[in-house]
């Protein structure tokens, strides 16, 4: 009886020690993971706006430093939008060509329907067509 209680108390102490260690570890990781959590839980529209801001910043930077001739730089956003549109159309086209079809499934389905109708009419379920 005493032995059992001693073992239970030891078990309790072990559990308490483990939970304290876990808490301490959590506090240290919290500051690093906080930054990751902020990015992950940001609303999607904010992520897209952040991307737009970065791209706009790059464009303005290019305008300021004139690495590329000014006339081209002014048209860069237009080029970007056009290429995005072309990429989209390409994706639609490729998807359309590679669209997976399954004509054999229609045949299998008809077989399943016949099998189902046989079974159900034998059990008294009304399977007349609409």
């Amino acid at each position: 009886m005493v032995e059992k209680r001693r073992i239970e108390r030891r078990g309790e102490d072990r559990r308490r020690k483990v939970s304290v260690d876990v808490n301490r570890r959590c506090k240290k990781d919290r500051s690093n993971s906080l930054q990751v959590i902020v990015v992950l839980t940001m609303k999607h529209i904010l992520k897209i706006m952040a991307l737009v801001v970065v791209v706009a910043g790059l464009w303005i930077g290019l305008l300021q430093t004139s690495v590329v001739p000014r006339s081209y730089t002014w048209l860069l956003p237009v080029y970007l939008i056009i290429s995005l549109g072309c990429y989209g159309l390409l994706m639609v086209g490729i998807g359309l060509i590679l669209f997976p079809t399954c004509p054999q499934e229609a045949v299998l389905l008809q077989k399943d329907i016949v099998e189902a109708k046989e079974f159900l009419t034998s059990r008294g379920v009304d399977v007349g067509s609409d």
Partner: protein
Amino acid sequence: MAKLEEIETEEHGETTMSIKMRRKKKKYSIIIPTYNERLNIALVIYLVFKHLQDFEFEVIIVDDGSPDGTQDVIKQLQNVYGEDRVLLRARPKKLGLGTAYYHGIKHASGDFIIIMDADLSHHPKYLPSFIRKQMETGASIVTGTRYVRNGGVHGWNLIRKLTSRGANVLAQTLLWPGVSDLTGSFRLYERKAFEDIISSVVSKGYVFQMEMIVRASRKGYHIEEVPITFVDRVYGSSKLGGSEILEYLEGLVYLLITT
């Protein structure tokens, strides 16, 4: 079931309770909303029972007061398969898809919720692959996708395929959803994941399905995909007109801003 020692520590990360739960057989609740599916629902139920013989499940049919006698057919099916496995939870009139699932889950007793359509476009033969995928990967959500190589669609003409593909590319570009088929409604959810997500969804119709999966993706749930084949509407007709396209675009903008 094996008797486990009273002294277990949290070091092992598992308590007696969770090990016992893991050993218990999982139950699957299949929720099928119906409206005027008198013939198809009988065929679907037969196929579900044929393909899920090794699993514990129940089918909850949420019928929105169909005038064609769907509920009579369901009662006949209950005589064949048992009222404990085929549950009819009817509603007085057409009240929408999202609320149909909400109504269905209140009567569900499973650990997992499977949603599918009643019109035979979703073939029950894929149900075991959903379940197996979930067991293998431990995912919270398994969604069926028609747009991968082993999947596919039959019965769509070129225009229909074009709109589907265009819509998909647009949604992928704007939303980055992490799944290839956003509007699909053949899915398996963990029960608590389903209850958590559905409480924050407000859309109706197929935009509902999009909102469910996008919100799930934003909340960080583990989502897996299985290929399914989709044979469009054997009996009946399906429409894709201008109003559906507008509804879709509105849904996209809504999801872009609020998720």
